[in-house]
């Protein structure tokens, strides 16, 4: 078990290094006019040149990357080129907002999709048809379009929810929940039906397995077969779908945060990339990839716990 985790972690570190370098490599091409952009058009040529040296822009790609990576390894992600705010601090204040939206959404999706998917698989009939048709609608409307629709209808027309939200520690839990409601709803509507459909087919696949028939022949109740055996065997497929949705959400939430003016990582990501604030972009990418690696590791661990075959190998 420990070697399993260590192996996964080692693979994660390699992925992290590869992606960091790739991102740095891409950003290298965008850094031509950064110093000028930071100082404004009235700065003199000498000032610009001095700034470039200060930021290390005069150096070649590899030394620059290794200088950044060396600092990153010690936990120093540098400071933003434009606001001079330390990158780590900027991220740590934004990350909880983004993670709250994403984690709350994925929990709702997991619960609702499992219930819907199992009901559709077992009962078939109208509930199955409803899930299938809803899946088409869920797939057809991107989450940000759904968010726009929700804002327009529920916040602007009906005034039931705040149109833009601010999550701060002192705004109180009621306000906090109210400002989360619409963004989470938009994400859940978009994700839940397709997850339900995947869980449905996973459950049907298990229900058709021979061992289910044998369990029935042994006098085990339908309920116990469904909740103890079928659900457990269908769980890895469901987890895979949910983890992929989670990864997708980390990106998709960028647009959602813009719509609801949520102070999460999204705004930071958009600002830093449009301006070419390399330390900040690297910070965003690094944090995102670390989260993805942790999620994948968790999924692997749960799958191992669920499936004794994986556990052994």
């Amino acid at each position, binding site marked *: 078990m420990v070697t399993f985790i260590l192996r996964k972690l080692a693979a994660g570190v390699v992925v992290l290094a590869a992606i960091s370098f790739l991102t740095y490599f891409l950003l290298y091409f965008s850094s031509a006019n950064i110093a000028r952009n930071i100082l404004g058009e009235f700065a003199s040529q000498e000032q610009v040149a001095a700034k470039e040296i200060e930021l290390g822009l005069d150096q070649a790609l590899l030394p620059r990357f290794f200088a950044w990576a060396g600092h990153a390894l010690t936990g120093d992600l540098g400071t933003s080129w434009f606001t001079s705010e330390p990158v780590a601090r900027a991220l740590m204040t934004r990350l909880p907002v983004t993670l709250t939206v994403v984690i709350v959404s994925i929990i709702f999706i997991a619960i609702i999709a499992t219930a819907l998917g199992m009901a559709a698989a077992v009962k078939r009939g109208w509930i199955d048809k409803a899930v299938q048709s809803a899946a088409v609608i869920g797939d057809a409307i*991107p989450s940000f379009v759904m968010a726009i629709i929700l804002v327009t209808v529920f916040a602007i027309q009906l005034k039931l929810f705040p149109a833009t939200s601010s999550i701060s520690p002192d705004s109180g839990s009621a306000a906090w929940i109210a400002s989360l409601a619409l963004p989470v709803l938009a994400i859940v509507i978009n*994700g839940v039906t397709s997850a339900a459909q995947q869980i449905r087919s996973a459950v049907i696949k298990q229900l058709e397995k021979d061992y289910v*028939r044998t369990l029935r*022949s042994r006098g085990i109740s339908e309920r116990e077969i469904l909740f103890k055996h079928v659900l457990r065997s269908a769980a890895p497929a469901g987890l895979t779908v949910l983890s992929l*949705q989670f990864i997708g959400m980390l990106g998709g*939430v960028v647009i959602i945060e813009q719509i609801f003016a949520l102070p999460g990582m999204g705004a930071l990501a958009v600002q830093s990339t449009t301006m070419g604030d390399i330390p900040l972009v690297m910070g965003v990418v690094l944090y995102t990839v670390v989260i993805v690696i942790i999620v994948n590791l968790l999924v692997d661990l749960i799958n191992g716990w669920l499936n004794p075959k994986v556990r052994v190998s």
Partner: protein
Amino acid sequence: MSEIEVLADQSDVGQKGTVVRSHVIKKILKNPMGLIAVGILTLVVLLAILANVLAPFDPNFANIGKTLANPDSTNLLGTDSVGRDVWSRLVFGARTTLLSALLCAAVAVGIGLPAGLIAGYYAGKFDGVANWVVNILMALPGIIVLLTVRAAFGPSVWISMVAFGILLSPGYFRLTRTAVQSVRNELYVDAARVAGLSDASIIARHIFSVVRAPIIIQTAIVCGVAISIQSGLEFLGLGDPTVATWGVMLSEGFKNVYLNPTLLLWPALAIGLTIGALVLLGNAVRDALEDAEKIKPAKRGSVAALNSRTAPGRTQNEAVAAGTEHHLVKVSHLGVGYPQADGSVKKVVDDVSFHVDRGEVLGIVGESGSGKSQTAFSILGLLPEAARIVGGSIQFDGKYTVAPTDDSVSQSRLSEFRGKRISYIPQEPMSNLDPAFTIGHQLVTPMVRVLKISKSEAKKRALKLLDDVGIRFPEKTFNAYPHEVSGGMAQRVLIAGAISCEPDLIIADEPTTALDVTVQADVLDLIRDLQKSLNVGVILVTHNFGVVADLCDRVAVMQDGRMVEEGDVREILRNPQDPYTQKLLGSMLEGKEPMTMLVSAGASAGGADNEKEAGL
């Protein structure tokens, strides 16, 4: 948001191995959803192609004097905040949107398909490297990457779509790779190789035809995702401001949502309808490839009407035909059928009657497809959901489990017997144990539920049972998972499970077919010994007359769902009346030694030992 899910979908669309033919296109158009999808997409394509003709204005022409206007005869859908014509922008937006979706899909296919073909066909180092790259690509959140790409290369729709195409290529890669791997070792591909065809032409001729259909489905999904992402980026204001796109229109509408919310309506509708049509098209293609012979469970009523079994099922207290109460099981004129899509019923069991008494072994013998397993499953009440009882009745110990008017097996009546008095030994040992639970757990739970005994008591009995069925180290097997034991051991475990609740009747469905020949004899010996010592009735379903001769007292011969002959085993072996039985016997005995019955006791005991050794 859903961009990554595309990658998860491959398990659904992969490995179908079906070739797209013209009748598939016909089927898609016959499916109302498919027709709607094709209609919408055709419309959008026409808008995009004819944009120059259909749009009265240049998409960027701004009439500053007429901003946020309502629809009129000049501006069909009104104007936006700087006085640009909404209709013209929508039409030109269709062009950009479609082209970018196609570019994205083309890049994804262009990378994923060849890479998948090579990785799947040649495997080896390339496969390893490709999989590593795929894992990295799949760990990337799409929008963050696209933001980075934009930072590097500037606000171009086309560059973003190329980058996004690369991000989506793993979907095609995995799809192709799995499909190719499943075909690569097929006999016809081997044959082509032996026939001297080059790798290139094998790939082109045999393998490409297999992946074509899933690729089309995947492309429909990818185009939808590309449109959604592209509009998302434009909405964030990260696109090229000089190009009219639906995403830019959405963003413009959202800024003016308090002034004129209808500005949001048109681009949102266009995006939703186009992506929806792509999703529907993908589903329609999949359905068209899948359904063909799929059986739809018809309404209860229609089947009942067909068989004039319209009266509601009676209760189990109904009187049993006189003079048959003493039979353990009595099957009378049983018919089992599957409703077809066209409303007819395909009968797989037709007018079958037999009975089994306590302490008696009945063999049901026939070729595959003769209806013998279906008959056995109707007694157990474990027919597939689509199956319907179309005639006859089944009594267990004098009580109806299928009354003469029922159209399905009554689960409530059977639950009184199943697992308690009727038990089942399946054919394929490995797939009949739940891989996620230990063997002990799977033996203990039924006993706890059925016999209402404590877990520790059940464990004691389970260990004894494992010993009884000839497993040498019961404790070790008790704690093992199914994948840790051999097939022969697993079958012994299943037999132990079948006798664990002291049944009166055991239904064994080809219990030795999936086993090695040496193990077969042991398992048959075991069943015979247990049957004798427990004095239970056994229904043994088999295609092997050798097994029948070895084990059975009486035999029923089935062909094409009908019973052609039934009687004493020795009688039928010596003097078969029906020509089919004669043929069956002839094909088994002619020119070769009878199989199982001549295996000597010594040989079989040796086999048992070897088998146990191998398992542990």
